[in-house]
């Protein structure tokens, strides 16, 4: 049976939620497997991250190197290509780091690669059955992954619920095995997102518009409804890409995390990157003209209507 490893994401010495999620996912691949966490970084924050990982995994491999202080995908890939034994299954979170580092690693390890996995049905021989989504969540698929020569898998954040199981793992220092970590991409600095005039993270009620708003001029329709409701206007990413609203109003993994009481999703399909920015289980109302939009699977209340007719009608009713 293949050895299973989990790459641990951490920040300021604290392991991210994905660390516990990958531990659960590993059990779904092979309930009996002894899973090894790999934690890369540098200095005291790495040590505390290793302590965090040891509470979840029986074995922890620590890789300490100044070149790993910031998780530069190009450098981490080099280290992992040296350290992960051939034929292993490596789990990585499907976040902006995983998307950067993992596809290339699968080539370096000559292993299979499957990205953004949302479900795992376990191994049958060397074939791993997993669940993915295509077309922005509008279609689900089963995929068969040939793990005979190993596999690198990225897992969608939030798809595997931590089971509360703990461990008191031991930490092994593998720093000496990482080899040459020089890279042709050099990390310079992180530029923080700009703050806007409005703080959508503090609003109790959000009227959030997506691509269904169709045109910059229609944003005012949403603003009028928000005014009538005492709400704030937020949006999905395409609205910011088109420069119809400022970045500070974007909800999602690459935008803001909001915790309203009520979230009105207007013409938003419900991609996982969008939903990833909604926390605290608000009451979600979705209005969408497509009855099959994935947002209806997570919303509390759904209305199949054209938002360009629905919003003015509701504003008038409240007025």
């Amino acid at each position, binding site marked *: 049976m293949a050895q299973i490893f989990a790459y641990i994401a951490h920040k300021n010495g604290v392991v991210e939620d994905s660390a516990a999620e990958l531990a659960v996912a590993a059990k779904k691949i092979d309930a009996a497997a002894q899973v090894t966490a790999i934690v890369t970084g540098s200095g005291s924050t790495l040590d505390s991250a290793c302590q965090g990982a040891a509470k979840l995994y029986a074995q922890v491999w620590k890789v300490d190197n100044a070149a790993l202080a910031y998780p530069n995908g190009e450098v981490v890939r080099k280290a992992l290509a040296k350290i992960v034994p051939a034929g292993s299954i490596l789990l990585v979170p499907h976040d902006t780091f995983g*998307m950067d580092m993992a596809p290339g690693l699968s*080539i370096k390890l000559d292993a299979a690669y499957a990205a*953004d996995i949302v479900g795992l049905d376990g191994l049958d021989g060397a074939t791993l059955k997993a669940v993915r989504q295509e077309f922005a969540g509008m279609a689900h698929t089963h995929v068969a992954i*040939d793990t005979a020569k190993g596999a690198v898998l990225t897992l969608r954040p939030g798809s595997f619920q931590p089971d509360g199981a703990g461990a008191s793992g031991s930490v092994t220092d593998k720093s000496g095995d990482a080899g040459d970590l020089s890279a042709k991409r*050099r990390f310079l600095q*992180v530029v923080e997102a700009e703050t806007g005039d409005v703080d959508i993270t503090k609003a109790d009620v959000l009227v959030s518009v997506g691509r269904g708003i169709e045109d910059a001029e229609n944003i005012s329709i949403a603003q009028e409804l928000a005014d009538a409701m005492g709400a704030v206007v937020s949006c999905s990413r395409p609205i910011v890409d088109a420069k119809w609203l400022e970045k500070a109003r974007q909800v999602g993994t690459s935008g803001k995390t909001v915790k309203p*009481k009520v979230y009105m999703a207007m013409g938003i*399909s419900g991609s996982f990157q969008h939903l990833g920015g909604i926390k605290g289980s608000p009451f979600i109302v979705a209005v969408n003209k497509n009855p099959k939009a994935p947002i209806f699977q997570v919303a509390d209340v759904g*209305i199949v209507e054209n938002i360009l007719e629905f919003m003015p009608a509701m504003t008038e009713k409240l007025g």
Partner: protein
Amino acid sequence: MEILVCVKRVPDTAENEISIKGDGTDIERDDLVYSVNEWDNYATEEAIQIRDKVGGSVTVVTVGDSESEEILRRQMAMGADKGILLADDAFEGSDGRGIASILKAEIQKGKYDLVLTGAQADDGAAQVGGMLAAMLDWPYASLVNKVDVEGGKLKIGREIEGGNQEMNEIELPCVLSIQTGINEPRYVGIRGIRKVASVEIPSHGAGDLGIAAGSVGAAAAKVKRADYFTPELGKGAEILEGSMEEKIDKLIELLKAKGGLK
């Protein structure tokens, strides 16, 4: 700078309802509207802007079939100088690794300084760019939302969580996957498409690229789609029925109960 942009023809999810065929082998493709993958459009625009600043040329390439030619022409109408179609029955059923191997073979026939891909395509894998870079042994950066040419290097921004931006310096040649929002892709009118309608687009197959039969395509794929299915829904939303007016009344009532309306 010689720039290659990898583009893919995909069903346009903003224009289509996606439904699954009864036997689960595929989605219903008969009435689908196809277009160039959203991310690839930003990649093409970025390539054109870089070329216009520092000189050189932009080539767009796709692994597809004869119908994929239309997206190459569309990107040429935007301003790409050249299009290349990579088509062969042997390519069918390739997984991401297969697509990357085919692209790699084409890249090695040319002399490119920069290869751009989209961050992800219709199946959301976000894999081809990173695989391609690893195969070429070139540096890679994903989710790029800023590119500045500085001498023989690039200064780039990568989008990371929370909308923060990770700045990097990267050496050429390299592969970058481009994130939406990096620029505002120019509009292509019917006139622009007409202008390039008769431009010759070369098509290369496995033989031209020196790709061994069986090293790509369905037989070589390590990841295979078994089926499409409709998941058992959770509780799902309570769908409000009736006239628009009735739906609004019901919603207002519910919102009042939830504290969403004073």
